[in-house]
């Protein structure tokens, strides 16, 4: 079974530029998460999708971050414009069902450096 795929793996941009990350969850997984992991910290949830609907985006900085999950499969996360403090690893995770007992499977992440 293929895991969660993410691209690109690395991205370096200058502040005020825009950037987009792509995630392809495990086939059949209904729930998709985007996390931000700053160096030395645990993952912080940005947004959670159930199929193509948003369950929670309360921690997403909506003035600069946006995310979508068209057709309930792939998802993209965009930052526009980027700030220095956005430097982090952006992790995508998916789970089969919307349930506490469901394991979240993480992708390899996209490492973003904002200069």
């Amino acid at each position, binding site marked *: 079974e293929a*895991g*969660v795929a993410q691209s690109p793996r690395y991205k370096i941009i200058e502040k005020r530029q825009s950037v987009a990350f792509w995630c392809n969850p495990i086939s059949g997984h209904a*729930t998709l998460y985007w996390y931000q992991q700053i160096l*030395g*910290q*645990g*993952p*912080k*949830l940005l947004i*959670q999708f159930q199929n193509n609907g948003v*369950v*929670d985006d309360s921690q997403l900085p909506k003035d600069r971050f946006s995310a979508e999950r068209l057709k309930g499969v792939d998802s993209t996360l965009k930052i526009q414009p980027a700030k220095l403090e956005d430097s982090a690893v952006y*992790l995508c995770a998916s789970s089969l069902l*919307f*349930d*506490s*007992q*469901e*394991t*979240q*499977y*993480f*992708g*390899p*992440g996209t490492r973003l450096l904002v200069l």
Partner: protein
Amino acid sequence: QQPVQSPQAVILREGEDAVINCSSSKALYSVHWYRQKHGEAPIFLMILLKGGEQKGHDKISASFNEKKQQSSLYLTASQLSYSGTYFCGTEMDQGSARQLTFGSGTQLTVLP
């Protein structure tokens, strides 16, 4: 409410045991444990649910104390492959968002 993990870091020799704790000030419904190696994705270890039993496989096990709202991860006879950062993700016992809030991690180093 972010859970508090302790210790922040631990160094062991191969074959020694370790305990990692994860505490919350809020009532928890579930605790999920992950291990992350440098530059890699977090890998799932196990889930403990409120009212559930202690879990384990191989030499890694965990428990969930509902009175203390604390989970402990036990690594027995540690191997070199156990090195990495261990995160607990907690789900609050309220609402239906099914979200995890992760602690800051415990860095475990196993030396030969």
